[in-house]
């Protein structure tokens, strides 16, 4: 509604000469131009390149693909190149069940992990939101703190715990609960544990913020109207925390689908997850076109959850106004 600090400099200024005004207008536009240009060059153009290379053919060279779609030979050349476009990499992806299975199992693993993280995170967030007001900032900091320590280290820490001669098995064996070491490392269970552990703060934070700002007198009103506590939770608390649930689930699910470190370190060589497949195609097989095609499809796969997340965020912002 108002012109302020930076934008005012673009407003007509009776006492400045025209060139000075023009210079100021440009200076104020730099605020937009600099980050915009940076993101165009380092975020958008790279995607265009990924897409372009996904349509090219593999070659034994450096870079290991035959370039396509250049304007070097003019528009005519561009059209003739268009005919040479190869969708072979995408066909390859559909032909080889490996890729399809990798996508499927990524979504499946990420989905299960998200549900587990919700089941683990909700009681924690709920407990935090109910904690004495003075204690809440500290609890909040304790949730955020692990996020500041290296992701890699946190995943690594679980190897020592989960492996056959690891700490968990030692504990269980010594207490006599089990007699044979459990095989957890290099299984899906280990991946679930790793994802839930690593992404738990992302689940707790949005849940906490939606639970914390909830007016407790709503529960009291429900109980006053004859609703027992458990039923009040399901009828009042949970529905009101849904924006937090959606945001938390998306914040876990989206990165988990493309996760590389966790399946690589905890899942063993048998685990199929798409992030890992992409990595292997790229680093081990040096097949840049195929890994680009994998990336394009992964992105398409994530567009829907990303949109859900964005609209949930927008709604949350609307509500807080």
């Amino acid at each position: 509604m108002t012109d302020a600090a930076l934008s005012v400099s673009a407003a007509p200024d009776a006492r400045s000469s025209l060139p000075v005004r023009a210079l100021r207008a440009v200076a104020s536009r730099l605020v937009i131009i600099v980050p915009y240009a940076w993101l165009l060059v380092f975020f958008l153009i790279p995607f265009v390149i990924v897409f372009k290379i996904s349509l090219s053919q593999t070659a034994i060279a450096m870079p290991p693909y035959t370039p396509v779609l250049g304007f070097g030979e003019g528009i005519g050349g561009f059209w003739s190149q268009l005919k040479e476009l190869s969708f072979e990499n995408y066909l390859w992806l559909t032909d080889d069940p490996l890729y399809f299975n990798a996508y499927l199992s990524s979504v499946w693993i990420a989905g299960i992990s998200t549900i587990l993280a919700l089941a683990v995170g909700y009681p924690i967030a709920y407990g935090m939101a109910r904690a004495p007001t003075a204690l809440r900032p500290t609890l909040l900091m304790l949730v955020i703190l692990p996020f500041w320590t290296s992701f890699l280290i946190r995943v690594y820490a679980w190897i020592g715990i989960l492996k056959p001669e690891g700490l968990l098995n030692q504990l269980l064996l010594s207490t006599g609960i089990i007699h044979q070491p459990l095989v957890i490392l290099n299984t899906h269970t280990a991946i679930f544990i790793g994802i839930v552990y690593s992404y738990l703060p992302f689940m707790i934070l949005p849940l906490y913020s939606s639970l914390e700002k909830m007016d407790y007198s709503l529960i009291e009103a429900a109980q006053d109207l004859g609703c027992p506590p458990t039923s009040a939770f399901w009828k009042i608390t949970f529905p009101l925390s849904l924006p937090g649930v959606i945001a938390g689930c998306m914040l876990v699910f989206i990165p988990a689908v493309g996760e590389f470190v966790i399946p690589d370190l905890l899942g063993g060589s048998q685990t199929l997850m798409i992030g890992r497949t992409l990595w292997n195609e790229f680093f081990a097989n040096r097949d840049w076109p195929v890994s680009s095609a994998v990336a394009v499809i992964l992105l398409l796969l994530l567009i829907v959850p990303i949109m859900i997340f964005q609209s949930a965020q927008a709604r949350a912002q609307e509500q807080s106004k």
Partner: protein
Amino acid sequence: MKSLGSIRRSFAPWNDPSAKPYISFENVTKVFGDFTAVDNLSLAIYEKEFFALLGGSGSGKSTLLRMLAGFDNPTSGRIMLDGQDLRGIPPYRRPLNMMFQSYALFPHMTVEANVGFGLKQEGMPKADIDARVAEMLKLVKLEQFAKRKPHQLSGGQRQRVALARSVAKRPKVLLLDEPLGALDKKLREETQFELMDLQQSLGLTFVVVTHDQEEAMTMADRIAILDKGQLMQVATPAEIYEAPASRFVANFVGNVNMFEGTVASRDAGIARVTGASGAEIVVDNAGDAAAGNAIAFAVRPEKIKVSSKRPEGAVNAMEGEVYDLAYLGDMTVYRVRLADGQVIQASALNSSRASDDPLTWHDRAWISFQPDAGIVLTR
């Protein structure tokens, strides 16, 4: 029209045809998207006047102030200050300062630095800045708080820092946006008088935006009443109260009873008005209302008498039932329901400790008023 009293009767440049306005809005319109905040408004403010812009939210009063300060530009029309067109002059080059509703004290600067901020922008030498800051802090009685940060001050103290900061540059005009809005009632009353003293002693022109009619009535020389971006009336507080220009103004300031009707006959200033239920009233000062015109006769509650019998020789008297009454100590407010269903509010000063004509709920009662007790409104 009879002359109406004002606190500063001698100061009335607006009645002097030779006086030149100091600030003038000339056919100013401000449109935000599809919302017209200010609609073709013209207004003149004189030097050293304490001028209040009074209106509800969305009335356009704040937009007028912000256009004067330079934060918004008029869509059309122009704003003149001391003969100079303000168009295109950015806020930092206008010789007026503003006190913000939120005070807008810089949280990272001490009280001293806040007050001296404007002087520093002028390039004033440091010694002079220090002297002026000390003077200003003395003026608002905050000398011992110079080194504090805004968050270390109470609400009232913050308000005074904001005031000191906005007058430190000795602006020609001080704009005040709801200056007392954030204070509690007691502090607000005290501060009203402090602001009036300050305006007198500094000889500044004050333009204050407020939604609080009491505040405007207390402090201002003249009040402009705004509604939906249009000027409803500009007048002294007494005129606004006693001679509102329209039904809107009469309702907006204070309580009022409206007797709606049609002028049946006119005889010089006197008019006979027939109400919807057939009751007739006689009114004085009928202005330009001609026979057949629909008018309202607006009477303030304190100008209506309530009694258990019809008063002897009363020109306008109506019978009804006491529907509600509230004893407020200094006065009693009666609500009397007339035969046609209209509820009339009347207030009686409790000038003696016991009334000799006590009325209570459901009593039959008469209300009466003089032909000149109210004002004829055609708008």
